[in-house]
């Protein structure tokens, strides 16, 4: 007797883990975005015109860059801390630096996307 142990997606996402947990969630979303990106990319290389059009779509590019870049930069932070366990003590500082780098890199990337889309 007793309630099932299963944790629903909403219960998991509702856990108040703060900033570090947010990066964990965004990392999963970013990983999924990269999977979609590579699928579309490979299909476009195979000559599917609809996929080639999607690759050139600024909304698609914005979505991929926003989440894909976060995945890459967060992954770099995780790798650095994994290789230097002593630094894990400063994980909050590392996450703050990560966000600063992300805003700069993603900001520049999105500027280029928007300029190409609307700059004429």
């Amino acid at each position, binding site marked *: 007797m007793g*309630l*099932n*142990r299963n944790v629903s997606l909403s219960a*998991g996402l509702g856990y*108040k883990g703060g900033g*570090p947990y947010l990066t964990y969630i965004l990392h999963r979303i970013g990983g999924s975005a990269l999977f979609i990106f590579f699928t579309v990319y490979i299909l476009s290389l195979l000559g599917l015109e609809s996929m080639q059009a999607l690759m050139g779509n600024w909304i698609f590019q914005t979505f991929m860059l926003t989440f894909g870049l976060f995945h890459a930069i967060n992954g770099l932070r995780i790798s650095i801390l*994994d290789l230097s*366990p002593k630094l894990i*003590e400063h994980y909050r500082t590392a996450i703050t630096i990560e966000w600063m780098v992300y805003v700069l890199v993603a900001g520049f990337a999105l500027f280029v996307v928007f300029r190409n889309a609307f700059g004429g």
Partner: protein
Amino acid sequence: MEVTVKIFRYSPEKDERGHYETYTVEAHENERILDVLELVKGHKDGSLAFRRSCAHGVCGSDAMRINGRNMLACKTLVRDVGANITVEPLLGLKVEKDLIVDMDPFFDNYRKMLPYLINESPLPADGKERLQSPEQRARFDETTKCILCAACTTSCPSFWASEEYYGPAALMAAHRFVFDSRDEGASQRLQILSETNGTVRCHTAYNCTNACPRDIHITQAIGELKMAMVTGNLE
């Protein structure tokens, strides 16, 4: 002050699924959430079930989700969480009644870490004790503080996904002995940790570190275990 506390309720005899009930009690802002639960149980609804023992943050009995985050009810004050409080059982363990969860899977994982000193060597010449320098003792001091409250393990997304994952608390037990200079079972434990349900399932969400009522740097200790598995260095 008037405190409104919303509590998850589940009775296996009556309910198919859990529900929430809201109670209003008078409590001082310096009172603990455990005191608020005692007020509800004593004055509002005697059927409310929750674990408690020492009530001073040592036994680890009263870990629960308070306003969406794992905490010890006896170490959390009303002023820390405000006048509107939601109390729920720990995630990832079967709920037996109200705030009481089945801790068996948690302790099963703990026992898999061989949480005791392994040393088959003969005692020193004086036959008394195996000596250790303060530096050697300090190496694993952090993880001796664990009180097995399960706040860390039940805040871990990997454990939510599968209770087969040993979880942060079990890994802390392993860390405590792996880095003990008197212990000779490190390779045995590192072998266990290298299995599918070992350290590889830690994805550094840091929920465990944030939830620990003893402020143990859990993710860092798991990182040290990962590094020891790769390098074999136990310094």
